[in-house]
């Protein structure tokens, strides 16, 4: 009864700050001292990208279990993989088409039983069978979100000529030193090689001496020219909004969020190409929670309601075809994200490198950053 009275008083705003602190302290101490016996089922643990830990994206799961799962936020798939390999017990991971193979090869991903996903039949058939969703004949990722990686710039702060013929070359141009921000990712080397004339199909699998040379030529330039190398999207969005930087490597959410704030921004289609990715949920075999909870979480991500939140909120596309029927048509048109198949025809779809190539990129990119003078 004491507890109920306290809550009542609290909701009426009659609890003093001191009483509140006392209660909070008592609770904090209590949870530390009490042994964890009542915890019958382990809570689901998800490795997620920053921003995707919002309940909008898995409301059905919250409705069923009454609480959010636990999240661990990563900045890139390689960080997440290293964390899992170091013994972090995650149940679900959010990789992308080009990175899911790393988890399969490392032996931490499980095959998905798509019959346990109620929304599976509404997923674009092209995505159901795409490489990355299927790896070595097994379905290892439930595709959920898709979108672009491209160059975003402030048209009001860039010369008009640039808007007519946008190019990735500004990230390697001393004239833009301190005015642009690349993503903290080996894409800086790959895109540099593409600026130098190499097609993506060769650049993404650079190895050995060729990789070292590309890193020395292009990676070092990108590190030097960039104001900072961004790791979380809010950091780069703030820098773009304030005018600290005038162009950056960006995903759709940056454009959607800045436009919502009234900041002019263009999501360019650079002449070297714009990229398309699709990401999804992978079941890991390292988790401790009930497998059904993991399937419920994945299924919630595939629901059309999640798709609507994703399309209208972040400007990303969604894998569920029905999501496009219930979303605001203006938001869809605004971002040009109606059909993943059309999108993939028109842009460069990220490809999966071999483990050796990926490890080479990891090392060379880290060294390139460290050697900045």
């Amino acid at each position, binding site marked *: 009864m004491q507890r109920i009275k306290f809550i009542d008083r609290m909701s009426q705003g009659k609890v003093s700050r001191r009483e509140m602190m006392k209660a909070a302290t008592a609770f904090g101490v209590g949870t530390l001292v009490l042994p964890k016996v009542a915890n019958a089922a382990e809570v689901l643990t998800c490795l997620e990208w920053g921003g995707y830990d919002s309940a909008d994206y898995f409301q059905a799961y919250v409705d069923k279990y009454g609480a959010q799962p636990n999240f661990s936020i990563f900045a890139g798939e390689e960080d997440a993989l290293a964390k899992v390999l*170091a013994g972090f017990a995650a149940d679900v991971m959010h990789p992308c088409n080009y990175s899911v193979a790393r988890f399969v090869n490392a032996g931490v991903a499980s095959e998905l039983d798509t019959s346990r996903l109620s929304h599976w039949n509404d997923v674009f058939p092209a995505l159901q069978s795409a490489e990355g969703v299927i790896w070595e004949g097994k379905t290892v990722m439930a595709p959920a979100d898709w979108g672009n990686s491209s160059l975003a710039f402030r048209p009001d702060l860039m010369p008009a000529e640039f808007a007519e013929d946008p190019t990735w070359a500004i990230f390697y141009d001393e004239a833009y030193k301190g005015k642009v921000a690349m993503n903290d990712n080996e894409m800086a080397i790959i895109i540099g090689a593409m600026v130098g004339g190499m097609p993506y199909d060769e650049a993404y699998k650079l190895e050995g001496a060729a990789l070292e040379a590309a890193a020395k030529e292009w990676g070092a330039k990108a590190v030097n020219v960039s104001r900072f190398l961004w790791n979380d999207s809010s950091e780069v969005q703030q820098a773009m909004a304030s005018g600290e930087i005038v162009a950056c490597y960006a995903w759709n959410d940056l454009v959607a969020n800045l436009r919502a704030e009234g900041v002019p921004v263009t999501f360019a289609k650079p002449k070297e190409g714009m990229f398309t990715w699709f990401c999804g949920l992978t079941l890991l075999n390292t988790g401790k929670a009930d497998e059904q909870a993991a399937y419920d979480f994945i299924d919630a991500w595939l629901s059309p309601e999640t798709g609507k939140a994703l399309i209208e909120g972040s400007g990303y596309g969604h894998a569920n075809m029905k999501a496009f029927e219930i979303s605001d048509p203006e938001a869809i048109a605004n971002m040009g994200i109606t059909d993943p198949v059309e999108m993939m025809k028109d842009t460069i779809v990220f490809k999966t490198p071999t483990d050796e190539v990926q*490890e080479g990129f990891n090392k060379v990119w*880290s060294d390139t950053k460290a050697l900045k003078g």
Partner: protein
Amino acid sequence: MVGYQGAEGLTSAVTTASIERPAERPAGPRSDPAVIRKRLAGFGLLAPALVLMFMMLALPVVALVLMSFWTQSGFELDRSISLENYRQLVAPSDETTWWYGIPFPLAYPVPAILMLKSLAMSLVATIAVIAVSYPMAYFMAFRVTRHKALWIILITIPFWTSYLLRVFSWKIVLGFNGAINSGLKAMGLIEEPLEFLLYNPTAVVITLAHAWVAFAILPIYVSLEKIDRNLLEAASDLGDSRLKRFFRITLPLSAPGTIAASLLVFIPTVGDYVTPALVGGPGGTMIGSLVQDLFLKQNNAPLGAAVSIVMMLIIAVLVLLFLWAIGYGKLRARRS
């Protein structure tokens, strides 16, 4: 924190201790049961700390040493003992990498460069910390006469918030639209925001210096507080100017606290990781960032372990050299 005592309290404690000590010296034979019991009681008091140190410090270090002899290839961890990681750190190469005019003829120069860079950055931060905290401690020890406890509490105020928040505040202070830039702009001193404030080694040094000042003030303050005021008076009476008095009495007598403070700042800051990650940008990377990257991104924990061990050894050697160079042994001898 060192318990606060008035000047008289401390000096009298020191004098009584020095009077009592000779009486204790001629201790009974080692076999005396009373002495043994006393010694065991001492270990009993130490036990909780020892157990904790063993579990939280010694065991992980042993694990780290062991791991540094393993090797990683792809996803496979090879547990056979090998010196491969250490070889990688010193393997020579015909191609020399230049960094600020210093040649590194190594096949994998990154760890060596970052170690040197971290040591240099920490050294600058340490000097900055001592330069800021010594006058402050001096002020507290010699000028503040009332409410000393209040002053000490005021110094610890930055510790009331998390370190992460303090680093973020520096990001806001130094940022593009931050406090410094908006202030200068409002005063009309600059047109465009200054961009050299953030994302470089200087930002890291500023942040580190601010974060560690309180750690340095307290030991320096304690050693200044302990100085017998009669010595200062004697120096003045015998004709020393204030400056001369400071260099002949105050500075040498406060040296133990100052040395302790510099080590307290230098050692942890060399391996700092979160500060460069937040305010350093790629140019402000330190050795801790590389260790983190090797463990958490390159999935090469054994190499990361080897880098950490080498760094620990280098710091240990440097500290010993430093103590030897300033004649710490003599200082201690003089004190007792």
